[in-house]
Structures are given as C-alpha cells and as structure tokens.
C-alpha cells in the first residue's frame, strides 16, 4: 500500500497538479462559506474547465472543491448560524454559541483542527482499508439501511437541550416535511400543493430558513452594544489551552472513527455520522448540561466526523465507480467526459489516477489546515462589522443562494416560511436541528423500509436474522433503554432532592 501511496504522492507533488489541488480546496472553502451556494454549484461552474485538463488533475480539482467546501461550511455555521449541508447543522449547535460569546476564533481553530484530523484519519482508512470497507458497504442492503436510519433518528432525538419527547416530536415533524413530493416507490404525489413541490422541499430552503433566517429575524431589531470592543484576535485567544486541548483528544478520535465508517456507506453517510458523533459525545459526557451553549468537545467530534466521512465517501466511488451522493455523481460525470469510466478496474487500469487522487486528499487537508489558521483572524474581523451592517447582506446572500440552487422562486418563499417557523419554534423552546435530521433521514427510512417489505414479502424477521441489521436493532434498543433508564434515575434524583 505504501508504495502505491508514494506513487500517488509523486503525482500530486508535480507543480501544476499541486497548484490545481490548492486552487480546488481554496475555492471550495470560499464557496462553502456562501450560504446556499454549495459544492454542487462550484463543481458545475468548473466542469467546463476540466475539459481542458487531464483526468487526474480534474478529479483532484473537483474533489478538492468537495472537501474544501466542508471546511467552508463550518465557517458559515460558526459565524452566522448558516448550515449549508445537513452535516454542518451540528456544527451550528456548539459553534454559533461560541461565536456569540466572543470565542469565534477558538471555535474556528478547533473546527479546523478537528476537521484536519478527521480528514487525515479518513485518508488513512482510504489507503489501508478501501477494499474491506467496500465489502462491508455492499453488505448494507435495504434492511440494514432502514435500521441504521432508525438508530440515527433515535440518536438525533437525544441531541435537543429540552425534553426528549419534544425533540422526538421535532424529528417526526422533519420526517413529515420529507414526505412532501412524489413518492419514491410509486410516484404518487403527496402533499403537492404546487407543481414545484413535486420533487419535495429543498434541503437548502429548510436549513437556511430554520437556522439562518430565523436567527436574523431575532437579531436584526435587537439593540446590542455598539461593537464588542475586546473582540479577541490575538493568536493566544485562538489556540485552546492545554486543558481544553486534552478534553478534545477522545472526542476527535471518536468522531473520526464514526465518520470514517459511515462515510463509506453510499447515501447520507456524512449527515448520519456527524449527528451520531454529536449525540454520542452528549450521551456519554460527564457534563451534558454544557452542550448547546458552546461546548468544545461537541464541536470537535462532529467536525472530525463529517470530514472523515467526506474522505471515506470516496471509497465506493473509487473502488466500485458508484457515486455515493449528488456531488460525487458530478465528479464521476466529469471523469466520464474525460474518457475514463470509473469502475472496479480503476485501481488496476489507472493506478496514477487512483493513488494520485488519494494522495491529493492527504496534501489537500494539509493545505486546508495551513490556509485556515491565518484566515481565522480574517474571519473574526468579519464579526467586527456591526451586525446591523452585516445582516442585510446575509439576507440577500441567502435569497440568491436558495434561488440559484434550483432557479425556483417557490424555494425562496419556502425559505421565508421556514424562517418564520424556525423563529416561532425557538420562541416556544422547540429545537430546529432534529427537524432537519428527520427531514434528511425520513425519506431514506421510508424508502428502505418499503423496499425491504417488497424484497422479502412483508416479512419483518429479516431485520433480526441478517447479522448487521440485528446489531443495529440491538443498538437502537440499547439507546431507548438508556434514555428510559436515565430519565427515571434523573426523576429519582430530583425527587430525592426535593424531599
């Protein structure tokens, strides 16, 4: 493996290739910061450029945009509560409170560093275990996905700061929103009030509305102290203390492992991974009450998870030629136009390309870390701009981003509707994050559950007779049991305290 990896490095370290790798991750990061304008827009803009490049270089460029935009998405989430992807929703939960309490620099540093470690772990898995991971991924059929999603949803309903029944209600509400549109199994139109809704509600609208717009409504008219005068931008305030650093080691490690595993499953690996990583930190933390208010381990774990997942997400693409998500499909499309059809033979027929691309992830993550740390100061400076000057621009950026996503006015109107909904929800102490996860995972659950029933003739026993599925069922049962146990023991504790 090492020889081949070195071969890959020799491809990447050619000056022109290196420049494109740099350009890709840099551009990806910048575009990832813009709300609503995500990796898909950036890649489709650059697609024509790749016609003039060789396959390896174009793949390195496009892949760089993809994982670079993950870094950028975290920045927008931390600074402005604007999650561009489902996986950065979790980043908002701890990152935004940190920024609001003048610790944006620290949050950005921890995010960048955890992303770096996560990315590197992901690359290591990619180099060492691409083939075994592929075999595991192929073992995931419809029953396994259905049970995995249930496990993810249960984990999600535990992340709210309020009561669990309310979080669970929000997950179910998210599932309900995810039902809008043509049914994937029969094509039947459900809740399609407007023809534009036939493809369902856009994720970008929902995320930008619930998180971004609702926050602007809340803060636009708020009188706040002119400027935070002591806004810290010295390097000392950015780097975590030794004590903080020590508390981050295990969360990053756990996050990276969860992310590496779930990323390799085609589908919504990164989203499930980051929610699971967050839920796990919160569940097993000794101080769960700190979560939701800017707790660093709660930021580090999902950040490392989603970046690890975005690297191992390339496993099915590279080993099987099967793109795991829409962005990956674009990258594969670009390869095809370059005359290379990715498939199981890619590793054998095109070792330069295969290992060059993997080595570029390694180099790209280092580049991202190096450009991110000096940029932190710049981003924090952005917060020195009074909010009154900043928010009108954010409003317009959200509008243009959402509109350009599908050239749809309906999406802009929906963003507004979800903004108002998100605002009211927060006023009445409902969490928006579980809604989003329910929305992303609900269709996946319905799809795979119904497919399981179709494939196995309505026989429920497949869920426990297939080994991987059985393990996932056991995990869900454990989570439910744990939730009941902890709420009962909490009640006993508080009863004892009052009597």
């Amino acid at each position, binding site marked *: 493996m090492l020889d081949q990896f070195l071969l890959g490095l020799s491809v990447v370290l050619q000056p022109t290739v290196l420049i494109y790798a740099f350009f890709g991750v840099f551009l990806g990061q910048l575009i990832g910061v813009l709300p609503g304008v995500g990796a898909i827009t950036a890649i489709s803009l650059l697609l024509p450029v790749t016609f003039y490049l060789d396959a390896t270089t174009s793949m390195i460029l496009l892949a760089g945009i993809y994982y670079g935009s993950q870094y950028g998405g975290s920045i927008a989430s931390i600074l402005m509560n604007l999650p561009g992807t489902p996986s950065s929703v979790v980043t908002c939960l701890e990152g935004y409170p940190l920024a609001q309490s003048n610790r944006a620099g620290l949050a950005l540093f921890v995010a960048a560093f955890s992303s770096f470690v996560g990315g590197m772990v992901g690359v290591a898995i990619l180099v060492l275990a691409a083939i075994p991971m592929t075999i595991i991924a192929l073992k995931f059929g419809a029953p396994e996905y259905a049970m995995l999603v249930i496990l993810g949803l249960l984990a999600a309903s535990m992340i709210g700061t309020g009561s669990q029944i309310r979080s669970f209600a929000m997950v179910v509400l998210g599932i309900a929103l995810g039902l809008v549109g043509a049914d994937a199994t029969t094509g039947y139109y459900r809740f399609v009030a407007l*023809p534009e809704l036939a493809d369902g509600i856009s994720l970008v609208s929902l995320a930008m509305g619930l998180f971004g717009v609702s926050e602007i409504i809340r803060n636009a008219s708020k009188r706040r102290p002119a400027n935070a005068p002591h806004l810290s931008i010295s390097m000392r305030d950015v780097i975590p203390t030794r004590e903080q650093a020590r508390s981050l080691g295990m969360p990053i490690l756990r996050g990276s492992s969860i992310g590496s595993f779930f990323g390799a499953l085609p589908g919504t690996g990164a989203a499930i991974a980051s929610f699971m990583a967050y839920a796990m930190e919160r569940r097993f933390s000794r101080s769960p009450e700190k979560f939701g208010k800017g707790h660093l381990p709660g930021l580090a774990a999902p950040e490392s998870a989603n970046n690890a997942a975005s690297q191992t997400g390339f496993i099915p693409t590279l080993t099987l030629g099967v793109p795991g998500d829409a962005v990956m499909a674009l990258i594969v499309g670009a390869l095809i136009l370059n005359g290379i059809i990715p498939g199981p033979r890619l590793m054998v027929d095109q070792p330069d390309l295969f290992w060059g691309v993997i080595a570029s992830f390694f180099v790209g993550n280092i580049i991202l870390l190096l450009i991110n740390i000096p940029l932190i100061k710049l981003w924090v400076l952005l917060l020195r701009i009074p909010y009154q000057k900043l928010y009108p621009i954010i409003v317009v950026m959200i509008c243009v981003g959402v509109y350009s996503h599908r*050239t749809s006015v309906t999406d802009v109107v929906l963003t507004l509707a979800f903004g108002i909904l998100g605002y009211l929800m927060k006023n009445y102490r409902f969490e928006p994050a579980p809604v989003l996860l329910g929305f992303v995972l609900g269709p996946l659950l319905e799809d795979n559950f119904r497919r399981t029933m179709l494939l196995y003739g309505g026989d429920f026993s497949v869920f426990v007779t297939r080994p991987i599925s059985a393990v996932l069922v056991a995990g869900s049962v454990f989570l439910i049991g744990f939730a009941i146990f902890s709420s009962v023991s909490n009640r006993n504790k508080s009863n004892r305290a009052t009597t």
Partner: protein
Amino acid sequence: MIRKLLTALPLAVAFAMPVAAEDFPDRSLRIVHGFGAGGNADTVSRIIAEEMSKSLGQPVVVESRPGAGGTVASGYVSKEDPDGYTMQLMVGGHAVAAALYNSLPYESVDGFTFISTLGQFPFMVAARSGEYASMEALIEAAKASPGSIKIGHSGVGSTQHLTGELLALRTGAEFLHIPYKGGAAASTALMGGEVDVVIDTGTVIRPQADAGVYDILAITSGQRWPDAPDLPTVAETVAPDFDVVSWTGIGMPAGVPTEISDKVRGAVHAALATPAVSDKIASLGAKPSPSTGEEMTNLIAGQIAVWTDVIATAGIDKR
C-alpha cells in the same frame, strides 16, 4: 434629453417589430433544461451551447429549471415566446412524462417545435457474472418461478423501469420490479446481491462488465449497436420487435417560424459535427444523431404510444 427620448421612441418600436430570419439571432439565446446543474443533461447543454454560440455569433446561456422529471422546464419553455431565442434540451423522459402524468401544463407534441435529436442510446440488461447464461435463460428462469426474479431500476416511471415492464409484457415473464434512487444505487444493489437484474445505460453497466462483475445479457435497441456489435439484442433473443432507445434532443416552443427553426437546426447539426461535441456525446454512451424536426416528432409520438400502453397494462399509478 426627454425630447431626444421621445423622438427615439417610434424608432425603438419599429426595431421591436419581428425581425427577418437573416437578422436572427441579434441577442443571446438560451437552452433550458429540467435537471440539476452539473448532471448529464446540464453537461450536454453546456457542450452544445458552446459550439452553437460559435456558429450563431451570439452567446448561448444554459438555464437549469429542475422539477418533476423535467416537466417543470417543459411547461416553462412551452409558454415562452416562439421567437427562436428559447430552446430546451429534452430527454427520453419527455415521452415518458406524456404517458405517465394525468395532466401536464403543456401539450407534449403540439406544444413544441422539435429541432433535432442530439444523441440516442440503448439500455443494457445486466446480471451478476455467471448467474444467467443468456437472455433466454433469464426469461426461462423467470417463467419457471413467476415474480421471484428481481429487477432493480432507477426510479418509478423512469425509462429504465418502463423498459423492464415492457420486457415482462412482451415475454410473458413476471418480475418483481424494485425501485432505487438512480442507476448507481440500483447497480450497487445488483453487486450486493439484493436484486438479480438491472437494466440501465452503458455508463452504469459497462465498467462493471469490463471488470467481469456483470454479464450483459442483451441490449434493448432494435438493431445491434455499432459500439458493441457482439451484444445480442432483446429483439433477436426473447422478444421480437423489442426496440427501446432513449435520446436527447433540442425543442422550442410551438410556432417558431420555419426560417428560424431551420437556422437553429443548422447550428445544432454543425455543432454535432464537431469532434468536441460528438466525442463527449459518445463518451456518455450515446450515438450522435442529427435529425430533422419531423423525425424527432415521429420518434416522440411513437414512444408516447408505447409507454402509454405499458403504463396502462402494467398498472403503474399515473400522477
């Protein structure tokens, strides 16, 4: 200043009158399509737009209006002015939608001026390597135990799905059709053993076949395909006259003056003749296929008839 504007006004009105075909185009044109930015439809649009702008001497912009299998874009384009400045990149799904939807916001054939097809491509019937010796063996196995062989397809109402249903109708074999989200997901399910057969395009099937993972049992076009002359057709093995070919093409709103549509057709054909375009279309597994408007109209009308029949007989829910 105001007087100047007022005197200029009648002139401006005169210029806004319909212009002769030799002046066309005097401003930028656009190609609308109904799929996501960066997808195959988008890519083909961009490639063709670039070449067309060279021969027409005006920029050609690509606009993505995704939604409801491309019908949102078709509805939008059919209502635009038939002045030749708005084109639509259409795919085989246009004919499927005509058969599948209860009501569409446009007339699928009469609502458009069809210019030319760009590329045509067949589908391939694939199974895991060694599972079935031939297409005949597959159909025999399906007839031996009806409903036990699972065909994975790329979504309900996709051409791939309807092709599978058509195969069942024409051979009398009964399959279990399992929907996935896209050809890639269906292909993964075939690899993992969840389904037994996948019918999809060459870009999905061929790399796996080249690697020895799949056997291609047959190809769905009526004649053998020039790219892969060794592959038998469905027609010659199990279902005579079986002929499914999907396509991409260019259409415009109905009522475009003939001189203008001819000029655009000329530009499309010129673009198709350049290696830049024909190579890219070939790399997507399609055969470049310049056509007349009439040929394209007949192709679409014929496919609408076939799919309407399939949907009614197979009992697929209309939407």
